[in-house]
């Protein structure tokens, strides 16, 4: 029988736009990276002006690299492959344009606000609250376009790449919303809803999974589509991809606490973070092997085809980074590597190697097809590959040496074990040569990338925008179920859901409910096994049935990722509170900042000091001896009201948790902030001369303190009125200005510098001991 056919024209215009945007923002992201790498080697490059200081530009680099470069690349890859895998044109054409322009507008707003110091002070979550809302809206638009396309598909079964896209869209929405819950104090400023340890946990649940679900899962989906296309071979193992997907999304979400090992984070969370990180080894390497073994029988293309070269190297870097990540999550290894450049090296093996090379491979494959031509120059692409590869090796190797070297030096104690053997600045001085090499590595990578830009521009100029087409049977029925919930009414979905429900009752229920849940889970599992063993269609159909029902598949993905986050975050939010148990707060509780100190803290956050300074003395002897000021490690209660928490992730400079105890000299801090190299010739800290001229906007303080009171910070009512706030501000600022004047430093009491000094000199002193009976 002859069927009449119709031609689908894919919407490749949107793919072209996202591709070009990614290529453009990639230059910006890498350029900022090289620039801030040079700033660490040559601090004069901070230029003594606020907009170019390291603390403000580093978030610009990370946001540009993650959300602008890789974000746009991901959207291009998702839209291109989804249309072809689902055999339908992209739905909602107008919304896809809203998605594109909305995302570019967000990037533009980020590029303006971050150098202005408008930040939430949380890594990869710096953008201010109005932009957060815009991001959430645009992400929902992306979700609508994707899921509507899914619903209109002509291909009944969902290919593995689509699973990863579904997992990405759902999980990123979940992560982003929870970590950006804030209470605004003005149009440009807000405080996070969570504080202290809660904020730390939520931030790294988000931060780690931004890597997992923004930089990894969508790129894995892209790998599963583009690698088989590039090498002309089917994916190595379909079954391995099932294991890869479900175990990866389930395990990844638990691993966030490995960013907080040996800190005040409760040990049960640290244990979970470490164990789940170690377990991640298996699915990550399963995925890597599945990607690499897809080249089976086509290894010769590695010699000739730059696309295959980039993709194979990218998958190899994925394997390397996912080996190193679990390794660094072992508490003993983390004690050495955390807060050092080893982490920076690890992260860049992932972003430059896995993400950057995957992006390059995809662009070299995609651009000639999108413009209906051939790649301008394979030789240039090969040169790009080798420049990029050598650049990454310089970068990663130098950071390994710097990180491990500095970690060892910082942990070294004197012969009697009573004090650190080296000063912080000595350890820093030793690794500066590595910073030159890092900048060189980044520079080589940038040159390679620019070659790609030239090559692709020439390719585009030699071609004409071309949309892909597909002949399909005219009467092809829509694959989506007729009724919204019909997809749930099949054995795999029902059995899976019943097992999950019973396990949740077992884990979360009390007493009899818990037993009921356990028995129910066992019965549901046995019933599932019996059903699939006794029925002719068997286990193979289990997952196949799921793949025909996108909605329940998405719900199950959501459950898989929600379990880990919920079991970590809900108890933490419920138990570890400022008004909580003295034992859980470890016998110490933070006292609220005075108005001037609060203003200083907001300046500290604005200048991005957290990018280089931690405020967390770990439970390690070298940390305690170096930073403890006789008070031991940082207790959980000491930062319980901090919004945002400032535990940090890197110590380019020393820890500041007890700076007020270690270095109470205000005049020293003034001179140091004004010009660090006047006091410490080997310092690489930027100078902050503008702080002595800038004036604090005191009108904001009442709103800020009111917001903090609403969030539970115990400011007493009588000192929270506008009049009391101003009076207290005035008295403390005059006191500090006078103390400085006594040492020959003239500065206005309203200067931002005074507020920052008030904050720094308070660190470590704003703590009170609490006993069990004082709590609650």
């Amino acid at each position: 029988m002859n069927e009449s056919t119709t031609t689908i024209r894919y919407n490749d215009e949107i793919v072209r736009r996202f591709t070009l945007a990614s290529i453009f923002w990639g230059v910006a992201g890498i350029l900022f990276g090289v620039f801030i790498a040079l700033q660490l080697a040559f601090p004069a490059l901070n230029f003594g002006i606020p907009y170019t200081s390291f603390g403000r530009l580093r978030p610009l680099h990370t946001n540009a690299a993650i959300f602008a470069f890789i974000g746009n690349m991901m959207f291009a890859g998702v839209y291109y492959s989804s249309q072809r895998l689902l055999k339908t044109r992209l739905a909602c054409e107008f919304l896809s344009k809203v998605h594109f322009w909305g995302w570019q507008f967000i990037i533009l707003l980020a590029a303006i606000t971050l150098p202005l110091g408008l930040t939430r002070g949380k890594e990869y979550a710096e953008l201010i609250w109005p932009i957060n809302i815009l991001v959430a809206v645009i992400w929902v638009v992306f979700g609508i376009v994707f899921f509507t396309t899914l619903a209109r598909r002509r291909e009944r079964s969902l290919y593995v790449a689509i699973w990863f896209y579904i997992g990405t869209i759902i999980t990123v929405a979940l992560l982003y919303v929870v970590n950006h819950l804030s209470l605004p104090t003005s149009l440009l400023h807000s405080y996070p809803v969570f504080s202290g340890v809660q904020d730390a946990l939520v931030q790294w649940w988000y931060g780690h999974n931004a890597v997992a679900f923004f930089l990894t899962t969508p790129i894995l989906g892209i790998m599963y589509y583009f690698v088989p296309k590039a090498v002309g071979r089917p994916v190595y193992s379909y079954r391995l991809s099932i294991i890869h997907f479900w175990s990866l999304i389930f395990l990844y979400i638990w691993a966030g606490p490995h960013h907080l090992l040996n800190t005040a984070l409760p040990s049960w969370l640290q244990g979970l973070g470490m164990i789940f990180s170690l377990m991640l080894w298996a699915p990550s390497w399963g995925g890597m092997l599945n990607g690499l073994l897809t080249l089976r029988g086509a290894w010769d293309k590695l010699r000739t085809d730059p696309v295959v070269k980039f993709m194979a190297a990218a998958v190899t870097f994925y394997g390397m980074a996912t080996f190193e990540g679990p390794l660094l999550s072992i508490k003993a290894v983390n004690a050495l590597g955390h807060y050092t450049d080893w982490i920076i090296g690890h992260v860049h093996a992932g972003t430059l190697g896995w993400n950057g090379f995957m992006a390059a491979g995809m662009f070299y494959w995609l651009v000639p097809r999108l413009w209906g031509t051939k790649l301008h120059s394979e030789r240039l692409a090969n040169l790009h590959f080798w420049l990029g590869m050598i650049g990454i090796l310089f970068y990663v190797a130098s950071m390994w040496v710097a990180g491990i070297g500095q970690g060892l030096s910082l942990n070294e104690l004197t012969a009697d074990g009573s004090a650190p053997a080296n000063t912080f600045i000595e350890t820093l001085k030793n690794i500066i040569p590595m910073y030159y090499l890092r900048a060189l590595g980044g520079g080589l990578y940038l040159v390679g990338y620019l070659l790609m830009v030239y090559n692709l521009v020439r390719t585009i100029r030699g071609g004409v925008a071309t949309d892909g087409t597909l002949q399909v049977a005219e009467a092809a029925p829509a694959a989506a179920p007729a009724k919204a919930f019909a997809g749930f009414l099949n054995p795999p979905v029902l059995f899976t859901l019943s097992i999950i429900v019973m396990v949740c009752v077992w884990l979360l229920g009390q007493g009899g409910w818990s037993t009921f849940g356990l028995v129910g889970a066992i019965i549901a599992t046995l019933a599932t096994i019996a059903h699939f063993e006794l029925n002719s269609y068997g286990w193979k159909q289990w997952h196949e049935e799921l793949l025909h029902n996108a909605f329940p598949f998405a719900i199950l993905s959501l459950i898989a990722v929600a379990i880990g986050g919920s079991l970590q975050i809900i108890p933490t939010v419920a138990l570890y509170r400022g008004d909580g148990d003295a034992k859980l707060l470890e016998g110490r509780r933070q006292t609220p900042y005075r108005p001037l100190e609060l203003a200083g803290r907001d300046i500290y956050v604005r200048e991005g000091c957290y990018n280089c300074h931690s405020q967390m003395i770990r439970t390690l002897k070298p940390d305690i001896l170096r930073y403890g000021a006789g008070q031991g490690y940082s207790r959980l209660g000491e930062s319980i009201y901090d919004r945002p928490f400032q535990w940090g992730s890197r110590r380019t400079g020393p820890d500041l948790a007890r700076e007020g105890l270690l270095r109470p000299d205000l005049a020293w801090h003034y001179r140091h902030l004004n010009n660090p190299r006047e006091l410490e010739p080997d310092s690489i800290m930027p100078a902050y001369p503008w702080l002595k001229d800038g004036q604090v906007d005191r009108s904001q303080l009442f709103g800020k303190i009111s917001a903090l009171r609403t969030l539970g910070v115990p400011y007493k009512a009588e000192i929270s009125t506008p009049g009391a706030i101003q009076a207290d501000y005035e008295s403390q600022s005059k006191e500090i200005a006078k103390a400085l004047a006594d040492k020959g430093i003239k500065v206005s009491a309203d200067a931002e510098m005074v507020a920052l000094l008030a904050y720094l000199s308070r660190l470590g002193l704003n703590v009170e001991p609490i006993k069990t009976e004082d709590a609650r």
Partner: protein
Amino acid sequence: MAALALTVFFSVLLALLAALAFLWDQRNRGEDGYDRDSLRPLDDDAPVAPPAPKLP
């Protein structure tokens, strides 16, 4: 001691799971060594498995 026990436990568990995954994967392979399910087409110009080599 606890760390060693945990390491051994998880290593054995991991090895068992990896072995199960391997067996599950192998059960789905044809004589040509290709995973039957992975041969489903990605899209219309998708790669397919090259023909199995013929014995002389």
